[in-house]
């Protein structure tokens, strides 16, 4: 692993296609990725070009500061796999990578979200068997 990685799996009582489409549909994005129901923020605009190489821009205001979440779609394989870069504001635009993997189970599905944070760290990093989160967490606990 090249940097801290967050991995979360979740089962949804909805077909894989519906769960997949939610990640590309700006109406749905305004209901789960961003918005006042999630945290103290207001949505300014949500725009995306859902094709490989297409960009997205999700603008919100938090405490009157405007924050633009931007990225590029790297893989779009409905309904199983979606990969996009993820960053805040332009200069960090492509700093981290989010991978959504969905396994259909009849009318339900299993989603695994992986957020490989800050790929800039990759060039410094050596390969390690341990997860980054674990390394940092263990050190913080031990010290």
């Amino acid at each position: 692993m090249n940097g801290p990685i967050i991995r979360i799996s979740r089962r949804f009582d909805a077909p894989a296609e519906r769960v997949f489409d939610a990640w590309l549909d700006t109406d749905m994005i305004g209901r789960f990725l961003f918005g006042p129901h999630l945290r103290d923020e207001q949505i300014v605009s949500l725009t995306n070009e859902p094709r490989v190489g297409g960009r997205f821009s999700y603008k919100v205001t938090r405490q009157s500061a405007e924050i633009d979440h931007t990225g590029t779609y790297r893989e779009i394989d409905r309904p199983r796999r979606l990969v996009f870069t993820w960053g805040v504001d332009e200069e960090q635009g492509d700093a981290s990578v989010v991978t959504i993997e969905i396994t259909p189970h009849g009318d339900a599905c299993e989603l695994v979200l992986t957020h490989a944070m800050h790929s800039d760290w990759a060039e410094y990093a050596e390969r390690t068997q341990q997860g980054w989160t674990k390394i940092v967490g263990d050190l913080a606990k031990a010290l």
Partner: protein
Amino acid sequence: MLSAALDDTMLALSDSTRRAILQRLAAGEARVTELAAPFAMALNAVSKHIRVLERAALVKRRKAGREHFLSLNPAPLNQAADWIEHQRNLWNDRLDALERALAEHDD
């Protein structure tokens, strides 16, 4: 979202020698020569690793006469752990919200 300080912390932790140095310093203050002893590398190479750790504020240096003593500053580690935890919570909240949004659409 991501500060330069956090960058320095992650860079510092990305090397096994530097992690071993931090583990050693967790046991208490040490001289540079003591830190270098377990490693099959030149003192100069160890000093370079220590400078990376100092830049990340993970290691503090105290001079007593001609001797340099190094000690650990765990604060940046806690900040990094907190930041990762914050990101994890945020994605969890988003998946909760997705679950609700999908259920509402069903109605």
